[in-house]
């Protein structure tokens, strides 16, 4: 049996407690927000890693990655015939379409795409949200180093594989 009106008292207590607890608000334009690691701000491109495999473009749910390329012949001394190599001509991400799912980054087999926590790239014209490969390359400087492994989390796949191999032999 609860006392009638106990809930009213509890409500008052909650608000009073919140009143004397310091607020954790970060005053954004004055104070840079403390973003968690792996924040999804903008996608950065490391151009030299890209092999134009088109996986990112094809996996993108809203088709916001545009890739053009051409093939170049590379003459390798001593080889029987010249090799062919893909050269990236255009790599654009349209951030007016991007929904920040990160599938392109997940799917990239050569680590050419990264998340950067930068988010202040709003534009007055929606067409300016199309970032070309130079602009995407500039974001690379803002990519943070990967956060250290969580000591309480699962061990990495590499570690378990090594341990399994060691116990097997």
């Amino acid at each position, binding site marked *: 049996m609860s006392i009638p009106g106990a809930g*009213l008292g509890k*409500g*008052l207590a*909650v*608000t*009073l407690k*919140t*009143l004397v*607890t310091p*607020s*954790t*608000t970060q*005053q954004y334009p004055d104070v840079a927000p403390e973003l968690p690691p792996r924040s999804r701000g903008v996608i950065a491109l490391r151009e030299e890693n890209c092999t134009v495999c088109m996986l990112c473009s094809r996996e993108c749910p809203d088709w916001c990655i545009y890739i053009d390329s051409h093939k170049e012949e590379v003459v390798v001394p001593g080889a029987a015939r010249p090799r062919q190599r893909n050269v990236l001509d255009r790599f654009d991400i349209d951030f007016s379409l991007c929904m920040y799912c990160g599938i392109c980054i997940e799917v990239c087999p050569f680590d050419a795409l990264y998340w950067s926590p930068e988010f202040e790239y709003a534009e007055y014209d929606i067409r300016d949200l199309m970032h070309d490969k130079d602009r995407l390359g500039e974001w690379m400087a803002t990519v943070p180093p990967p956060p250290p492994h969580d000591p309480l989390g699962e061990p990495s796949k590499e570690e378990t594989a090594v341990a399994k191999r060691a116990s097997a032999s």
Partner: protein
Amino acid sequence: MTWELILRVALVAVAFLTLPLLVGQTEHKVMAHMQARLGPMYAGAFHGWAQLIADGVKFAQKEDVTPRAADGPVFRLAPAVALLPYLLVLLVIPLGPGDLVGQPLDVGLFFVLAVVGVGVIAVLMAAWASANKYSLLGGLRAAAQLLGYELPFVLSAASVAMAAGTLSLPGIVAAWEPWWLLWQLPATIVFFVSGLAEIRRPPFDMPIADSELVFGYLTEYTGLRFAFFLLAEYVGIVVISALTAALFLGGWHGPWAESVGWLWMLLKTGAVAFVVIWLRVSWPRLREDQLQRLCWLVLVPLALAQLVLTAGVRVALS
């Protein structure tokens, strides 16, 4: 003599213009921090102290719209009718011992209760004249609520008048003794709760009920007239807090009352105003039937019982 009168009226006018802003700013900040926010931080550079001034400037710049179907003169007059009674009430509330009151009035309590009741008319004027169904619904709710709560409001005030044996507000404060806090406790609660309902503050904001009625009887108001209604709400807080402090919490009574009595009065008023804000943040709005039930089945009997108690103690003492 004339100069003294002018000075008194001017001081009351200054209090009328500054105290509500103070309460409003406190509400901004207290409510924000109770909701784990910061509230206004930019206007005036230091913790948003000038926010309400900025709001006032904004309101003054807005277009003054009178709906075509509205009853023009009544519609335009309503904000003034809402605001004026509170100004008149401030005139008779004692600030400190002796002569520190805008205008000592022998029937002060009677005057206050009569004049505060005029607020109902302002609400009804705004509601009927707006030619808006939400305004009308809000106004009818307000009429039902204000007429209902007028009764416990008056009865509890009558209790303290009976205890003091006078209707003059300075007289009641002068007759007050600390043990009255206990003796008049039910009347204090009834007076404060029905006072909250009189100024239509949450949890008694059924007439405004923004989630059901757009903004009740204020729906059609814009600009300066809307600001007047808002100002009336905050003056209402000041008046109800000051009345509660003066009638039931001993007004200027306190240590060194002779010299700093006015400070005690302001502190007590501020504390009651804080509770008003606190209740707004913490409690949900009462439904219409709950509102009437609370009034007629709880507050009115409580006030009547308090009257009997007061009369009994008075007879026993004399």
